[in-house]
């Protein structure tokens, strides 16, 4: 099982994914500088990704609190919080791009 991550510079990486893990955790545990400030509580919006439109329909609809966080973090049409996406076999090959707000930068 894998996900395809497009980083801030447009580079594509294939990341080994584990069923039941959050996409945010997979990105973080591969050492990418994802902010994910609140640690996956759907409370900060800094793990935002843009989902490849072809995959969007396979995902569950965002809940109210996820929509709220996307509101506060300038989400677009295909934006989701990667902490709210749980890996399942159906999502094998999921392609996401890290949003600017999710990329940790130097002070």
């Amino acid at each position, binding site marked *: 099982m894998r996900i395809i991550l497009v980083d801030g510079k447009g580079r594509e990486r294939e990341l080994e994914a584990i069923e039941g893990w959050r996409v945010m955790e997979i990105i973080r545990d591969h050492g990418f500088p994802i902010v994910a*400030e*609140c*640690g996956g*509580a759907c*409370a*900060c*919006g*800094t793990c935002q990704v843009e989902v490849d439109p072809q995959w969007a329909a396979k995902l569950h609809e965002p809940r*109210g609190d996820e*929509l*709220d966080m*996307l*509101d*506060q*973090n*300038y*989400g*677009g*049409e295909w934006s989701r919080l990667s902490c709210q996406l749980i890996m399942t076999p159906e999502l094998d090959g999921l392609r996401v791009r890290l949003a*600017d*707000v999710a990329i*940790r930068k*130097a*002070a």
Partner: protein
Amino acid sequence: MTQEAISTDVVIIGAGPCGLFAVFELGLLDMKCHLVDILDKPGGQCAELYPEKPIYDIPALPVVSGHELTERLMEQAAPFSPEYHYNEMVEELEKLEDGRFRVKTDGGLVFEAKVVVIAAGGGSFQPKKPPIPGIDAYEGQSVFYSVKRMENFRNKKVLISGGGDSALDWTINLQPVAQSMQLIHRRDGFRAAPDSVNKMHALVEEGKMQFHLGQITALHGDNGQLTGVTAKGNDGSDYEIECDTLLPFFGLTMKLGPIANWGLNLHENLIPVDTGKFQSSEPGIFAIGDINTYPGKLKLILSGFHEAALMAQAAFKYANPDAKVTFQYTTSSTSLQKKLGVA
């Protein structure tokens, strides 16, 4: 205006869970604390990011909300009469010749303290800026992230962006003052109080304001003065909105802020500390909670509590190099129980 310095044992920067528990641990050692926080309330992330979210990993509290945890920590700290300074951001921190530290806030408060404890979490909360190219050039002149005086918006063509309470409240409050009022939000749902949303819809129906669905993609204007914006609708089409003032309300985020300028060693925006004293590269300046880093660090509230306890011992020894510290338990020590007001 020169402010008289407040003299104290400890200044704690940040009134989140770790800062609050540090008051307790330092208090047991008779060290008096002043806490400074940029928010208007205690609790830090617990109060600002997830006041209603349940926390499950506080020892002995199987479930507790961020709000309740904050309340309980305040209660636990109360016997030591900490003094809280809200809506203040610490800007300057310098060491004095006598070994104490001078701490200055953006609001003009000055402290002189024997030790400083940085318990600032992810740094200071700041308004989130929307990622619109060139927005910096308009900030402070025609783009504002907060409303200090409503009069400043009289007869302005105001555009507000966002869907939360701040966005809706200011839409309703500024509408009678402004020449024109428009609100733009990415979807038809709002996280603001339903009553505010209803009021906004009523104003739209009465023709007193306009609501747009979409997201601002570009700003237009000259020399910092806005004349309009381009927005993208949900159908992908672009449209123009005329306005001379933009108020984006996208909540708060944490920035390291002035801590970067205090001459401390930093590693990826965190303060490296040792795991015996939780002291920074500057003796007498300690760092606990999410702001510090060390091998094996976990950003857990409970880790911050442990760090506060060990830090307090080290801070006491730093401030009182000749005093003998006798380690005591609150269960058995009458002197500690007196301090807690229970003996």
